[in-house]
């Protein structure tokens, strides 16, 4: 009966009939990412982290600072010609050392976090799923490890098994798994009551398959937030160990080690030995803390702006 009438405009499914746009349904991860990007501090944090990763790992390809050959004539040069950030007591170029130290710090940070989250996920998911006496025993063991004074034990082990990226990562990660274990156990306790877990069980899934395919993937949000903070804490721990003089030594470089050499000259006015390294450590840890906080806020549905 619409003869001679102008045709209606094409049906636009993205606009509701009365005002306001109706967005297409987005997955949970997209929403979390959107919230994350809205947080300006987080974007700054990601930027700083990317900067350090790029400079420390790709920098040495373009910039060849002398970090291996002692060059005592040029020792203790302030920043100037040929040495953008000066030289240290052995004549090594500070910028080159910063890059190598950054590589070590980031490698140890990420590897230690990986070790911690792996052990934590294992302990937490087994404790949460099994329940009963296994749960109690594992939680008591976690309590015991939580009561270990972290810095002391890490220092003692670092002195003895010293000074390499691998051993430091294992030592730090080996005493940092308690918090992720607790968090993941809490998540697993909640998730295992859900219907899809019941459905999976009915379909014949064994415990390990449940953990691998259903429980841990749904606890991923909590795990990612925790990993970020673990990396920050691991980099701090390496800085502490290095500052006390028990970190990596020549030919490897460690930010804490550079700082420990530099503080001997605090009263001599050799500021380039101290402040650049300190700034790097503080900026990296702060960036990771920003990212971790923003991730935690973006995973929390109650804080979503909608």
């Amino acid at each position, binding site marked *: 009966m619409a003869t001679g009438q102008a045709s209606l405009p094409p049906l636009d499914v993205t606009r509701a009939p009365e005002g306001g746009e109706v967005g297409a349904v987005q997955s949970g991860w997209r929403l979390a990412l959107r919230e994350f990007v809205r947080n300006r501090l987080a974007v700054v944090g990601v930027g700083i982290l990317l900067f350090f990763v790029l400079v420390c790992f790709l920098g040495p390809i373009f910039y060849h600072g002398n970090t291996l050959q002692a060059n005592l004539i040029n020792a203790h040069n302030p920043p100037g010609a040929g040495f953008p950030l000066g030289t240290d007591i052995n004549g090594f170029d500070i910028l080159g050392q910063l890059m190598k130290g950054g590589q070590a710090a980031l490698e140890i940070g990420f590897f230690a976090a990986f070790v911690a989250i792996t052990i934590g996920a294992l302990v937490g998911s087994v404790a949460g799923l099994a329940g009963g006496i296994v749960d109690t025993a594992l939680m*008591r*063991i976690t*309590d*015991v*490890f*939580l*009561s*270990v*004074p972290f*810095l*002391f*034990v890490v*220092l*003692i*082990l670092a*002195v*003895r098994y010293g000074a390499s990226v691998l051993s430091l990562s294992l030592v730090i990660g080996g005493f940092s798994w308690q918090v992720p274990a607790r968090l993941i156990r809490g998540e697993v306790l909640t998730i295992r009551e859900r219907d899809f877990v019941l459905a999976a069980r009915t379909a014949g899934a064994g415990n390990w398959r449940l953990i691998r395919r259903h429980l841990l993937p749904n606890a991923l949000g909590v795990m990612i937030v925790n990993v970020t903070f673990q990396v*920050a804490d691991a980099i*701090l721990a390496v*800085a*502490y160990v290095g*500052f*006390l*003089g*028990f970190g990596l030594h020549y030919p490897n470089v460690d930010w804490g080690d550079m*700082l420990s050499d530099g*503080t001997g000259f*605090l*009263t001599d006015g050799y500021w380039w030995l*101290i402040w650049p390294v*300190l700034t790097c*450590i*503080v900026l990296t*840890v*702060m960036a990771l*803390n920003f990212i971790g906080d923003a991730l935690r806020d973006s995973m929390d549905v109650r804080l979503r702006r909608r």
Partner: protein
Amino acid sequence: MTAYLLRRLGTSIIVLIGISIFIYLLLHAIYPSPARAVLGLRANNAQIAAWNKENGYARPVIEQYLSYMNALIHGNLGYSYSNNQTVASLFQERVARSAYLSGAGLVLAVLIALPLGIFQAVKRNSLGDSALTSAAFILYSMPVFALGLILIQVFALSFPLLGFEASQSTSLWTVIGDWHDMLLPILTLTLISVALFSRYMRSASIDVLAQDYIKVARAKGLPERLVLSRHMVRNASLPMVTLIGLSLPALLAGNLITEFLFNYQGLGLLFYNSLGKEDYPVLLAYTLIGAVFVVAGNLVADIALTVADPRIRLA
């Protein structure tokens, strides 16, 4: 409540036993005996074995552990061969100074963080609050030595106001009176704690401000400062009680870096020196006592919160 406390105490004792076993076994695996340190590098295996047998290091590990624990309970913490004195006497020389440093830091931190948190909550999202929150965040992300170095540079080197090395005196009264040298180490510890405390104080105060009884107090016509001092302080301080309890381990541990940086002859510096010398009896005793402090700190935090917060008592 007594049932809960008894259960908590029981759990703590079990954890203490577990952790003592773990730490003893760990240190035993690393340094099985101080024989090599005592006899020197040239000693041959027979001499080492004889020394071990004579001093009880050849017994099975369990027996060594039990006799060590027995001695520990009776106050005998072992003997330090490098320093040629008993570990207990080494600790006794230094414990007062370490306790003063940490205690002063803690007390000052609470005194500053309490009003600071309340101020931040009352003037929420204002310029002062944002500035303080950012400052707290930066301080919180900083390692302890970073803050110490900045303080030394600003207050002792660029503007020579304070000393950059802590007081070396062995008398506690001299140390307490020497604020020129002690202010920077104490300030380092204080600022780190304030960063943590004020965050919790601020969020707890914001929660309290939203409560009905604050509204009633204001409606009654109570001046604002009485509302804050009479109602808010007590209720917002509850998380602080837990935090203070959890800071007890730091009375031993956290000073390690500060004492190292300011060369303060306390327990932390003793630990650092023993690390370098591989003085295993001192390390073992120190780590065990550190673990005891951690467990005790958690227990005190739980008990104090149960006592302070009537809402928990009935649970």
